[in-house]
Protein backbone atom coordinates (compact mmCIF):
# COMPACT_ATOMS: atom_id res chain seq x y z
CA UNK A 1 0.00 0.00 0.00
CA UNK A 2 1.27 3.51 -0.76
CA UNK A 3 2.06 6.01 1.95
CA UNK A 4 -0.12 9.10 1.84
CA UNK A 5 1.81 10.78 4.64
CA UNK A 6 5.43 10.07 5.31
CA UNK A 7 7.37 11.51 8.20
CA UNK A 8 11.14 11.26 8.15
CA UNK A 9 13.47 11.93 11.05
CA UNK A 10 11.13 14.58 12.39
CA UNK A 11 12.50 16.47 15.37
CA UNK A 12 10.82 19.27 17.25
CA UNK A 13 12.55 21.23 19.93
CA UNK A 14 10.67 24.14 21.46
CA UNK A 15 12.38 27.42 22.28
CA UNK A 16 12.25 26.54 25.96
CA UNK A 17 14.45 23.52 25.20
CA UNK A 18 11.73 20.90 25.48
CA UNK A 19 12.41 18.07 23.05
CA UNK A 20 8.84 17.24 22.03
CA UNK A 21 9.69 14.92 19.12
CA UNK A 22 12.87 12.94 18.56
CA UNK A 23 13.69 11.52 15.14
CA UNK A 24 10.18 10.38 14.41
CA UNK A 25 9.68 8.15 11.37
CA UNK A 26 6.13 7.29 10.39
CA UNK A 27 4.34 6.15 7.27
CA UNK A 28 0.59 6.47 7.00
CA UNK A 29 -1.05 4.27 4.42
CA UNK A 30 -3.78 5.46 2.17
CA UNK A 31 -7.24 4.47 3.35
CA UNK A 32 -6.29 3.23 6.80
CA UNK A 33 -7.22 4.36 10.28
CA UNK A 34 -4.09 4.82 12.32
CA UNK A 35 -4.37 5.43 16.05
CA UNK A 36 -1.52 7.15 17.82
CA UNK A 37 -1.64 5.97 21.36
CA UNK A 38 0.25 7.69 24.11
CA UNK A 39 -0.07 9.30 27.52
CA UNK A 40 -0.52 13.04 28.00
CA UNK A 41 2.56 14.94 26.96
CA UNK A 42 3.87 12.14 24.75
CA UNK A 43 4.06 14.39 21.69
CA UNK A 44 0.90 13.29 19.89
CA UNK A 45 -0.45 16.78 19.34
CA UNK A 46 2.97 18.17 18.45
CA UNK A 47 3.39 15.48 15.81
CA UNK A 48 0.03 16.34 14.26
CA UNK A 49 0.76 20.05 14.42
CA UNK A 50 4.09 19.55 12.69
CA UNK A 51 2.46 17.57 9.90
CA UNK A 52 -0.34 20.10 9.47
CA UNK A 53 1.97 23.12 9.51
CA UNK A 54 0.75 24.69 12.74
CA UNK A 55 4.07 24.17 14.46
CA UNK A 56 7.40 24.66 12.73
CA UNK A 57 9.71 21.69 12.29
CA UNK A 58 13.17 21.76 13.87
CA UNK A 59 14.57 19.15 11.49
CA UNK A 60 13.37 16.32 9.29
CA UNK A 61 10.76 16.13 6.55
CA UNK A 62 7.05 15.59 6.18
CA UNK A 63 5.49 14.66 2.85
CA UNK A 64 1.78 14.58 2.18
CA UNK A 65 0.78 12.89 -1.05
CA UNK A 66 4.41 13.26 -2.13
CA UNK A 67 4.52 17.02 -1.45
CA UNK A 68 6.92 18.44 1.13
CA UNK A 69 4.93 20.35 3.71
CA UNK A 70 7.40 23.21 3.87
CA UNK A 71 8.67 23.76 0.36
CA UNK A 72 5.41 22.77 -1.31
CA UNK A 73 3.06 23.63 1.54
CA UNK A 74 0.06 24.56 -0.57
CA UNK A 75 -0.16 21.19 -2.26
CA UNK A 76 0.60 19.35 0.97
CA UNK A 77 -1.83 21.22 3.19
CA UNK A 78 -4.72 21.20 0.77
CA UNK A 79 -4.90 17.41 1.19
CA UNK A 80 -5.17 17.60 4.97
CA UNK A 81 -8.11 18.20 7.24
CA UNK A 82 -7.48 18.79 10.93
CA UNK A 83 -9.87 18.38 13.84
CA UNK A 84 -8.19 19.92 16.89
CA UNK A 85 -8.44 18.67 20.42
CA UNK A 86 -10.09 21.79 21.81
CA UNK A 87 -13.50 22.82 20.61
CA UNK A 88 -12.71 26.27 19.34
CA UNK A 89 -15.53 27.57 17.22
CA UNK A 90 -16.54 31.14 16.73
CA UNK A 91 -19.63 31.21 18.94
CA UNK A 92 -21.81 33.66 17.02
CA UNK A 93 -21.25 32.22 13.57
CA UNK A 94 -23.72 29.84 11.97
CA UNK A 95 -22.74 26.27 11.18
CA UNK A 96 -23.12 26.87 7.46
CA UNK A 97 -20.97 30.02 7.42
CA UNK A 98 -18.19 28.54 9.47
CA UNK A 99 -18.03 25.43 7.28
CA UNK A 100 -18.14 27.49 4.11
CA UNK A 101 -15.37 29.71 5.50
CA UNK A 102 -13.13 26.69 6.01
CA UNK A 103 -13.66 25.55 2.45
CA UNK A 104 -12.73 28.96 1.09
CA UNK A 105 -9.69 29.23 3.33
CA UNK A 106 -8.43 25.97 1.86
CA UNK A 107 -8.73 27.41 -1.62
CA UNK A 108 -11.94 25.87 -2.87
CA UNK A 109 -14.88 27.74 -4.29
CA UNK A 110 -18.55 26.82 -4.43
CA UNK A 111 -19.07 23.22 -3.42
CA UNK A 112 -22.39 23.81 -1.67
CA UNK A 113 -23.42 20.28 -2.67
CA UNK A 114 -20.37 18.85 -0.97
CA UNK A 115 -20.94 20.89 2.19
CA UNK A 116 -24.55 19.76 2.23
CA UNK A 117 -23.56 16.11 1.98
CA UNK A 118 -20.92 16.50 4.71
CA UNK A 119 -23.40 18.16 7.04
CA UNK A 120 -25.97 15.48 6.32
CA UNK A 121 -23.45 12.73 6.88
CA UNK A 122 -22.63 14.24 10.26
CA UNK A 123 -26.32 14.79 11.13
CA UNK A 124 -25.86 18.55 11.20
CA UNK A 125 -27.96 19.55 8.23
CA UNK A 126 -30.98 20.68 10.23
CA UNK A 127 -28.64 22.79 12.40
CA UNK A 128 -26.96 24.58 9.52
CA UNK A 129 -28.49 27.96 10.37
CA UNK A 130 -27.90 27.68 14.12
CA UNK A 131 -25.14 29.64 15.80
CA UNK A 132 -22.46 27.26 16.96
CA UNK A 133 -22.81 28.38 20.60
CA UNK A 134 -26.34 26.94 20.61
CA UNK A 135 -25.12 23.42 19.81
CA UNK A 136 -24.44 20.57 22.20
CA UNK A 137 -20.88 19.44 22.87
CA UNK A 138 -21.16 16.46 20.53
CA UNK A 139 -22.54 18.61 17.74
CA UNK A 140 -19.75 21.14 18.16
CA UNK A 141 -17.21 18.39 17.69
CA UNK A 142 -19.01 17.26 14.59
CA UNK A 143 -18.96 20.84 13.28
CA UNK A 144 -15.18 20.75 13.68
CA UNK A 145 -15.13 17.55 11.65
CA UNK A 146 -17.37 19.13 9.03
CA UNK A 147 -14.98 22.09 8.80
CA UNK A 148 -12.05 19.74 8.39
CA UNK A 149 -13.87 17.83 5.64
CA UNK A 150 -15.17 20.94 3.87
CA UNK A 151 -12.36 21.06 1.32
CA UNK A 152 -12.49 17.33 0.49
CA UNK A 153 -9.17 16.34 2.08
CA UNK A 154 -7.58 12.94 1.54
CA UNK A 155 -6.25 12.71 5.07
CA UNK A 156 -8.09 13.60 8.24
CA UNK A 157 -6.32 14.17 11.55
CA UNK A 158 -8.41 13.82 14.68
CA UNK A 159 -6.62 14.99 17.80
CA UNK A 160 -8.20 13.21 20.76
CA UNK A 161 -11.69 13.24 19.27
CA UNK A 162 -13.28 11.82 22.40
CA UNK A 163 -11.39 13.64 25.16
CA UNK A 164 -13.93 14.67 27.77
CA UNK A 165 -16.80 13.09 25.88
CA UNK A 166 -19.34 10.79 27.52
CA UNK A 167 -19.69 7.12 26.63
CA UNK A 168 -22.68 7.48 24.31
CA UNK A 169 -21.06 10.26 22.38
CA UNK A 170 -17.82 8.35 22.17
CA UNK A 171 -19.55 5.43 20.48
CA UNK A 172 -21.17 7.90 18.12
CA UNK A 173 -17.76 9.35 17.28
CA UNK A 174 -16.38 5.87 16.61
CA UNK A 175 -19.21 5.26 14.15
CA UNK A 176 -18.54 8.59 12.49
CA UNK A 177 -14.89 7.71 12.01
CA UNK A 178 -15.72 4.27 10.62
CA UNK A 179 -18.12 5.93 8.24
CA UNK A 180 -15.44 8.37 7.07
CA UNK A 181 -13.09 5.53 6.33
CA UNK A 182 -15.81 3.87 4.30
CA UNK A 183 -15.95 7.07 2.28
CA UNK A 184 -12.27 6.64 1.45
CA UNK A 185 -10.75 9.12 3.91
CA UNK A 186 -7.48 8.19 5.58
CA UNK A 187 -7.84 8.88 9.29
CA UNK A 188 -5.15 9.49 11.87
CA UNK A 189 -6.40 9.88 15.41
CA UNK A 190 -4.69 10.31 18.71
CA UNK A 191 -5.98 8.93 21.95
CA UNK A 192 -4.87 7.80 25.34
CA UNK A 193 -7.70 5.29 25.61
CA UNK A 194 -6.53 1.85 24.59
CA UNK A 195 -10.10 0.65 24.02
CA UNK A 196 -10.61 3.51 21.62
CA UNK A 197 -7.63 2.53 19.53
CA UNK A 198 -8.90 -1.01 19.67
CA UNK A 199 -12.38 -0.07 18.54
CA UNK A 200 -11.38 2.07 15.61
CA UNK A 201 -7.90 1.53 14.29
CA UNK A 202 -6.39 -0.70 11.63
CA UNK A 203 -2.94 0.04 12.92
CA UNK A 204 -1.74 1.40 16.20
CA UNK A 205 1.32 3.50 16.83
CA UNK A 206 2.56 3.90 20.37
CA UNK A 207 4.23 7.20 21.13
CA UNK A 208 5.94 8.07 24.36
CA UNK A 209 8.30 10.89 25.35
CA UNK A 210 8.50 12.14 21.78
CA UNK A 211 9.44 8.80 20.27
CA UNK A 212 7.43 6.31 18.28
CA UNK A 213 7.88 3.08 20.23
CA UNK A 214 6.22 0.89 17.66
CA UNK A 215 3.66 0.84 14.88
CA UNK A 216 1.83 -2.42 14.40
CA UNK A 217 -1.35 -3.92 13.03
CA UNK A 218 -3.99 -3.70 15.68
CA UNK A 219 -4.72 -7.41 15.88
CA UNK A 220 -1.08 -8.27 16.40
CA UNK A 221 -0.68 -5.62 19.04
CA UNK A 222 -3.86 -6.38 20.93
CA UNK A 223 -2.90 -9.98 21.42
CA UNK A 224 0.44 -8.80 22.70
CA UNK A 225 -1.18 -6.35 25.05
CA UNK A 226 -4.10 -8.56 25.96
CA UNK A 227 -2.90 -9.45 29.44
CA UNK A 228 -5.50 -9.21 32.14
CA UNK A 229 -5.48 -9.70 35.89
CA UNK A 230 -8.00 -11.78 37.83
CA UNK A 231 -7.89 -10.71 41.46
CA UNK A 232 -9.32 -12.83 44.23
CA UNK A 233 -9.97 -11.06 47.52
CA UNK A 234 -9.72 -13.44 50.44
CA UNK A 235 -11.85 -13.27 53.57
CA UNK A 236 -8.71 -13.94 55.62
CA UNK A 237 -5.18 -13.15 54.43
CA UNK A 238 -3.09 -16.09 53.25
CA UNK A 239 0.60 -16.38 54.05
CA UNK A 240 1.38 -18.56 51.06
CA UNK A 241 -0.19 -19.93 47.91
CA UNK A 242 -1.82 -23.35 48.60
CA UNK A 243 -0.22 -26.31 46.89
CA UNK A 244 -3.29 -26.96 44.71
CA UNK A 245 -3.02 -23.49 43.19
CA UNK A 246 0.68 -23.64 42.36
CA UNK A 247 0.17 -24.42 38.61
CA UNK A 248 -1.63 -21.10 38.16
CA UNK A 249 1.41 -19.01 38.98
CA UNK A 250 -0.49 -16.78 41.39
CA UNK A 251 0.94 -13.82 43.22
CA UNK A 252 -0.01 -12.54 46.64
CA UNK A 253 -0.58 -8.87 47.21
CA UNK A 254 -2.04 -6.53 49.81
CA UNK A 255 -0.36 -8.49 52.63
CA UNK A 256 -1.83 -11.75 51.47
CA UNK A 257 -5.40 -10.44 51.32
CA UNK A 258 -5.46 -10.79 47.52
CA UNK A 259 -4.31 -13.41 45.07
CA UNK A 260 -3.58 -12.29 41.52
CA UNK A 261 -3.94 -14.48 38.45
CA UNK A 262 -2.58 -13.21 35.15
CA UNK A 263 -4.16 -14.48 31.95
CA UNK A 264 -4.33 -13.78 28.25
CA UNK A 265 -7.73 -12.73 26.92
CA UNK A 266 -6.81 -13.64 23.37
CA UNK A 267 -5.75 -17.21 24.19
CA UNK A 268 -7.92 -20.28 23.66
CA UNK A 269 -8.92 -20.58 27.29
CA UNK A 270 -8.35 -18.18 30.15
CA UNK A 271 -7.99 -20.89 32.79
CA UNK A 272 -10.35 -19.08 35.15
CA UNK A 273 -12.77 -22.00 35.44
CA UNK A 274 -9.97 -24.39 36.35
CA UNK A 275 -8.64 -21.89 38.85
CA UNK A 276 -12.02 -21.49 40.53
CA UNK A 277 -12.50 -25.23 40.67
CA UNK A 278 -9.10 -25.67 42.26
CA UNK A 279 -9.79 -22.79 44.61
CA UNK A 280 -12.97 -24.36 46.02
CA UNK A 281 -10.90 -27.41 47.02
CA UNK A 282 -8.45 -25.38 49.12
CA UNK A 283 -10.97 -24.23 51.73
CA UNK A 284 -9.98 -20.58 51.25
CA UNK A 285 -12.91 -18.20 51.69
CA UNK A 286 -13.38 -15.70 48.89
CA UNK A 287 -14.84 -12.32 49.74
CA UNK A 288 -14.88 -10.86 46.23
CA UNK A 289 -13.30 -11.12 42.81
CA UNK A 290 -12.48 -8.46 40.24
CA UNK A 291 -10.52 -8.16 37.03
CA UNK A 292 -8.04 -5.51 35.94
CA UNK A 293 -6.60 -4.82 32.55
CA UNK A 294 -3.02 -3.66 32.36
CA UNK A 295 -3.13 0.12 32.12
CA UNK A 296 -1.52 1.99 29.31
CA UNK A 297 1.25 3.03 31.65
CA UNK A 298 2.01 -0.62 32.37
CA UNK A 299 1.98 -1.37 28.68
CA UNK A 300 4.47 1.39 28.00
CA UNK A 301 6.73 0.19 30.73
CA UNK A 302 6.38 -3.32 29.30
CA UNK A 303 7.15 -2.13 25.79
CA UNK A 304 10.16 -0.08 26.74
CA UNK A 305 11.61 -2.84 28.92
CA UNK A 306 10.87 -5.38 26.22
CA UNK A 307 12.80 -3.30 23.70
CA UNK A 308 15.68 -3.00 26.11
CA UNK A 309 15.90 -6.77 26.50
CA UNK A 310 15.70 -7.76 22.88
Amino acid at each position, binding site marked *: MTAIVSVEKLTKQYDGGVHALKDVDLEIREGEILALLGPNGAGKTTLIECICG*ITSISSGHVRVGGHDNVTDYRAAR*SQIGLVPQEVNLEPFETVWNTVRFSRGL*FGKSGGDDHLESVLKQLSLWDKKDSQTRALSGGMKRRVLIAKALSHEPKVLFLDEPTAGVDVGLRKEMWNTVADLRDHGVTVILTTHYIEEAEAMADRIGVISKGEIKLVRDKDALMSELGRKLFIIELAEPATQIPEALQPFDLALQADGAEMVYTYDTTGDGTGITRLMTALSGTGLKVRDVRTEQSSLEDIFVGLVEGEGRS
Partner: protein
Amino acid sequence: MNLYAIWAIYRYEMARGLRTVTQTVVSPVLSTSLYFVVFGTAIGSRIQEVEGVSYGAFIVPGLIMLSVITQSISNASFGIYFPKFIGSIYEHLSAPASFLEITAGYVFAAATKSLAIGVIILITAFFFVDLDIQHPFWMALFLVLTCLSFSLMGFIVGIWATNFEQLQLVPLLLIQPLIFLGGTFYSISMLPPTWETVSLFNPVVYLVSGFRWSFYGMSDVALGWSLLAIFGFTALCLGIVWLIFRTGWRLRD
Protein backbone atom coordinates in the same frame (compact mmCIF):
# COMPACT_ATOMS: atom_id res chain seq x y z
CA MET B 1 -2.31 32.60 -5.19
CA ASN B 2 -5.15 31.40 -3.02
CA LEU B 3 -7.71 34.08 -3.90
CA TYR B 4 -10.51 32.03 -2.41
CA ALA B 5 -8.84 32.27 0.98
CA ILE B 6 -8.72 36.07 0.77
CA TRP B 7 -12.34 36.13 -0.28
CA ALA B 8 -13.39 33.68 2.44
CA ILE B 9 -11.76 35.74 5.19
CA TYR B 10 -13.08 38.98 3.72
CA ARG B 11 -16.63 37.73 3.50
CA TYR B 12 -16.47 36.21 6.98
CA GLU B 13 -15.19 39.45 8.50
CA MET B 14 -17.73 41.57 6.65
CA ALA B 15 -20.50 39.30 7.90
CA ARG B 16 -19.26 39.85 11.44
CA GLY B 17 -19.34 43.61 10.82
CA LEU B 18 -22.93 43.44 9.61
CA ARG B 19 -23.93 41.30 12.58
CA THR B 20 -22.56 43.91 14.96
CA VAL B 21 -23.60 46.91 12.89
CA THR B 22 -24.41 49.05 15.95
CA GLN B 23 -20.90 48.66 17.24
CA THR B 24 -19.18 48.92 13.87
CA VAL B 25 -21.05 51.75 12.18
CA VAL B 26 -23.61 53.43 14.39
CA SER B 27 -21.39 54.19 17.37
CA PRO B 28 -18.52 55.90 15.49
CA VAL B 29 -21.02 57.92 13.47
CA LEU B 30 -22.85 58.97 16.62
CA SER B 31 -19.70 60.00 18.44
CA THR B 32 -18.49 62.02 15.45
CA SER B 33 -21.85 63.74 15.19
CA LEU B 34 -21.44 64.72 18.82
CA TYR B 35 -18.07 66.27 17.99
CA PHE B 36 -19.77 68.30 15.25
CA VAL B 37 -22.45 69.49 17.63
CA VAL B 38 -20.01 70.40 20.40
CA PHE B 39 -17.00 71.71 18.52
CA GLY B 40 -18.56 72.70 15.23
CA THR B 41 -21.84 74.28 16.21
CA ALA B 42 -21.72 75.13 19.91
CA ILE B 43 -18.11 76.17 20.49
CA GLY B 44 -17.11 76.55 16.86
CA SER B 45 -19.39 79.56 16.36
CA ARG B 46 -17.24 81.49 18.86
CA ILE B 47 -13.95 80.45 17.26
CA GLN B 48 -12.50 82.48 14.45
CA GLU B 49 -12.17 81.09 11.00
CA VAL B 50 -8.97 79.20 10.37
CA GLU B 51 -7.31 80.52 7.23
CA GLY B 52 -10.64 81.49 5.77
CA VAL B 53 -12.47 78.27 6.64
CA SER B 54 -15.11 78.16 9.37
CA TYR B 55 -13.98 76.12 12.36
CA GLY B 56 -16.80 73.64 11.97
CA ALA B 57 -15.72 72.89 8.42
CA PHE B 58 -12.02 73.00 9.34
CA ILE B 59 -12.30 70.06 11.72
CA VAL B 60 -14.19 67.79 9.30
CA PRO B 61 -11.10 66.19 7.67
CA GLY B 62 -9.51 65.72 11.08
CA LEU B 63 -12.63 64.13 12.50
CA ILE B 64 -12.89 61.73 9.57
CA MET B 65 -9.24 60.81 10.06
CA LEU B 66 -9.82 60.34 13.79
CA SER B 67 -12.62 57.85 13.19
CA VAL B 68 -11.02 56.09 10.26
CA ILE B 69 -7.72 55.56 12.07
CA THR B 70 -9.22 54.32 15.33
CA GLN B 71 -11.76 52.14 13.56
CA SER B 72 -9.16 50.63 11.22
CA ILE B 73 -6.99 49.68 14.15
CA SER B 74 -9.77 48.30 16.28
CA ASN B 75 -11.45 46.38 13.44
CA ALA B 76 -8.29 44.75 12.15
CA SER B 77 -6.79 44.02 15.55
CA PHE B 78 -9.98 42.43 16.81
CA GLY B 79 -10.42 40.51 13.54
CA ILE B 80 -7.16 38.58 13.93
CA TYR B 81 -7.05 38.58 17.73
CA PHE B 82 -10.42 36.86 18.07
CA PRO B 83 -9.42 33.62 16.28
CA LYS B 84 -6.24 33.65 18.35
CA PHE B 85 -8.27 34.08 21.51
CA ILE B 86 -10.80 31.32 20.81
CA GLY B 87 -8.18 29.08 19.21
CA SER B 88 -9.63 28.84 15.72
CA ILE B 89 -6.38 30.32 14.37
CA TYR B 90 -5.24 26.72 13.89
CA GLU B 91 -7.25 26.74 10.71
CA HIS B 92 -5.44 29.73 9.25
CA LEU B 93 -2.07 28.24 10.12
CA SER B 94 -2.86 24.87 8.56
CA ALA B 95 -4.48 26.32 5.45
CA PRO B 96 -2.72 26.40 2.09
CA ALA B 97 -2.62 30.18 2.28
CA SER B 98 0.37 32.52 2.45
CA PHE B 99 0.85 35.36 4.92
CA LEU B 100 -0.03 37.83 2.20
CA GLU B 101 -3.37 36.19 1.55
CA ILE B 102 -4.39 35.94 5.20
CA THR B 103 -3.28 39.51 5.87
CA ALA B 104 -5.06 40.74 2.75
CA GLY B 105 -8.33 39.15 3.81
CA TYR B 106 -8.33 40.76 7.24
CA VAL B 107 -6.88 44.09 6.19
CA PHE B 108 -9.20 44.58 3.21
CA ALA B 109 -12.20 43.76 5.37
CA ALA B 110 -11.15 46.12 8.15
CA ALA B 111 -10.30 48.85 5.63
CA THR B 112 -13.66 48.43 3.89
CA LYS B 113 -15.47 48.86 7.17
CA SER B 114 -13.55 51.95 8.20
CA LEU B 115 -13.83 53.39 4.71
CA ALA B 116 -17.60 52.98 4.93
CA ILE B 117 -17.56 54.77 8.27
CA GLY B 118 -15.41 57.57 6.83
CA VAL B 119 -17.81 58.06 3.93
CA ILE B 120 -20.84 58.02 6.23
CA ILE B 121 -19.23 60.64 8.45
CA LEU B 122 -18.40 62.74 5.41
CA ILE B 123 -22.03 62.60 4.32
CA THR B 124 -23.16 63.40 7.87
CA ALA B 125 -20.83 66.42 7.89
CA PHE B 126 -22.72 67.93 4.95
CA PHE B 127 -25.72 68.26 7.26
CA PHE B 128 -23.78 70.30 9.80
CA VAL B 129 -21.37 72.50 7.85
CA ASP B 130 -20.70 73.86 4.39
CA LEU B 131 -18.13 71.58 2.83
CA ASP B 132 -16.06 72.07 -0.21
CA ILE B 133 -13.83 69.33 -1.58
CA GLN B 134 -11.25 70.87 -3.89
CA HIS B 135 -9.33 67.73 -4.81
CA PRO B 136 -11.74 64.76 -4.68
CA PHE B 137 -9.25 62.32 -6.20
CA TRP B 138 -6.59 63.08 -3.61
CA MET B 139 -9.19 63.01 -0.87
CA ALA B 140 -10.26 59.51 -1.89
CA LEU B 141 -6.65 58.38 -2.20
CA PHE B 142 -5.70 59.67 1.25
CA LEU B 143 -8.80 58.12 2.76
CA VAL B 144 -8.24 54.70 1.19
CA LEU B 145 -4.52 54.63 2.00
CA THR B 146 -5.16 55.65 5.59
CA CYS B 147 -7.76 52.90 5.97
CA LEU B 148 -5.38 50.32 4.52
CA SER B 149 -2.25 51.32 6.39
CA PHE B 150 -3.89 51.60 9.79
CA SER B 151 -5.75 48.35 9.24
CA LEU B 152 -2.33 46.82 8.62
CA MET B 153 -1.12 48.35 11.84
CA GLY B 154 -4.20 47.03 13.63
CA PHE B 155 -3.50 43.58 12.25
CA ILE B 156 -0.02 43.74 13.76
CA VAL B 157 -1.46 44.90 17.09
CA GLY B 158 -3.89 41.97 17.00
CA ILE B 159 -1.08 39.48 16.46
CA TRP B 160 1.08 41.12 19.12
CA ALA B 161 -1.63 41.25 21.77
CA THR B 162 -1.79 38.33 24.16
CA ASN B 163 -4.84 39.58 26.06
CA PHE B 164 -7.73 42.00 25.68
CA GLU B 165 -5.97 44.66 27.72
CA GLN B 166 -3.05 44.80 25.32
CA LEU B 167 -5.53 44.98 22.48
CA GLN B 168 -6.79 48.28 23.92
CA LEU B 169 -3.38 49.53 24.94
CA VAL B 170 -2.00 50.67 21.60
CA PRO B 171 -5.14 52.51 20.42
CA LEU B 172 -5.58 54.12 23.82
CA LEU B 173 -2.05 55.06 24.83
CA LEU B 174 -0.37 55.57 21.48
CA ILE B 175 -2.84 56.28 18.72
CA GLN B 176 -5.35 58.43 20.57
CA PRO B 177 -2.74 60.99 21.76
CA LEU B 178 -1.07 61.01 18.34
CA ILE B 179 -4.39 61.75 16.68
CA PHE B 180 -5.47 64.44 19.12
CA LEU B 181 -2.06 66.10 18.96
CA GLY B 182 -1.85 65.56 15.22
CA GLY B 183 -3.75 68.66 14.22
CA THR B 184 -7.17 67.08 14.12
CA PHE B 185 -8.82 70.03 15.85
CA TYR B 186 -6.26 72.72 15.05
CA SER B 187 -3.59 73.71 12.60
CA ILE B 188 -0.14 73.06 14.02
CA SER B 189 0.82 76.56 12.89
CA MET B 190 -1.35 77.78 15.78
CA LEU B 191 1.15 76.22 18.22
CA PRO B 192 4.21 77.91 19.72
CA PRO B 193 7.26 77.27 17.48
CA THR B 194 8.78 74.64 19.77
CA TRP B 195 5.64 72.54 19.82
CA GLU B 196 5.15 73.02 16.13
CA THR B 197 8.57 71.41 15.63
CA VAL B 198 7.75 68.61 18.05
CA SER B 199 4.51 67.98 16.17
CA LEU B 200 6.47 67.31 13.00
CA PHE B 201 7.58 64.04 14.57
CA ASN B 202 3.98 62.93 14.79
CA PRO B 203 3.14 60.91 11.67
CA VAL B 204 -0.57 61.68 12.01
CA VAL B 205 0.17 65.37 11.33
CA TYR B 206 1.18 64.46 7.78
CA LEU B 207 -1.97 62.45 7.17
CA VAL B 208 -4.36 65.04 8.54
CA SER B 209 -2.50 67.79 6.75
CA GLY B 210 -2.63 66.04 3.39
CA PHE B 211 -6.26 65.10 3.85
CA ARG B 212 -7.21 68.65 4.83
CA TRP B 213 -5.36 69.96 1.79
CA SER B 214 -7.56 67.81 -0.44
CA PHE B 215 -10.59 69.64 1.02
CA TYR B 216 -9.47 73.25 1.35
CA GLY B 217 -6.17 73.48 -0.42
CA MET B 218 -4.33 74.39 2.79
CA SER B 219 -1.83 72.27 4.62
CA ASP B 220 0.60 72.31 7.53
CA VAL B 221 3.27 70.41 5.61
CA ALA B 222 3.98 70.02 1.91
CA LEU B 223 1.79 67.48 0.08
CA GLY B 224 4.84 65.47 -0.94
CA TRP B 225 5.70 64.83 2.68
CA SER B 226 2.19 63.69 3.39
CA LEU B 227 2.30 61.21 0.53
CA LEU B 228 5.73 60.01 1.57
CA ALA B 229 4.48 59.55 5.13
CA ILE B 230 1.47 57.46 4.16
CA PHE B 231 3.37 55.28 1.68
CA GLY B 232 6.28 54.90 4.06
CA PHE B 233 3.98 53.89 6.89
CA THR B 234 2.19 51.34 4.69
CA ALA B 235 5.51 49.86 3.58
CA LEU B 236 6.73 49.68 7.18
CA CYS B 237 3.60 47.84 8.32
CA LEU B 238 3.80 45.42 5.37
CA GLY B 239 7.43 44.71 6.24
CA ILE B 240 6.54 43.95 9.85
CA VAL B 241 3.69 41.64 8.82
CA TRP B 242 6.01 39.81 6.44
CA LEU B 243 8.53 39.33 9.25
CA ILE B 244 5.84 38.09 11.63
CA PHE B 245 4.69 35.37 9.26
CA ARG B 246 8.19 34.47 8.26
CA THR B 247 9.30 33.92 11.82
CA GLY B 248 5.92 32.75 13.09
CA TRP B 249 6.20 35.25 15.96
CA ARG B 250 3.23 34.95 18.32
CA LEU B 251 1.63 32.52 15.86
CA ARG B 252 3.74 29.40 15.54
CA ASP B 253 5.76 27.71 18.23
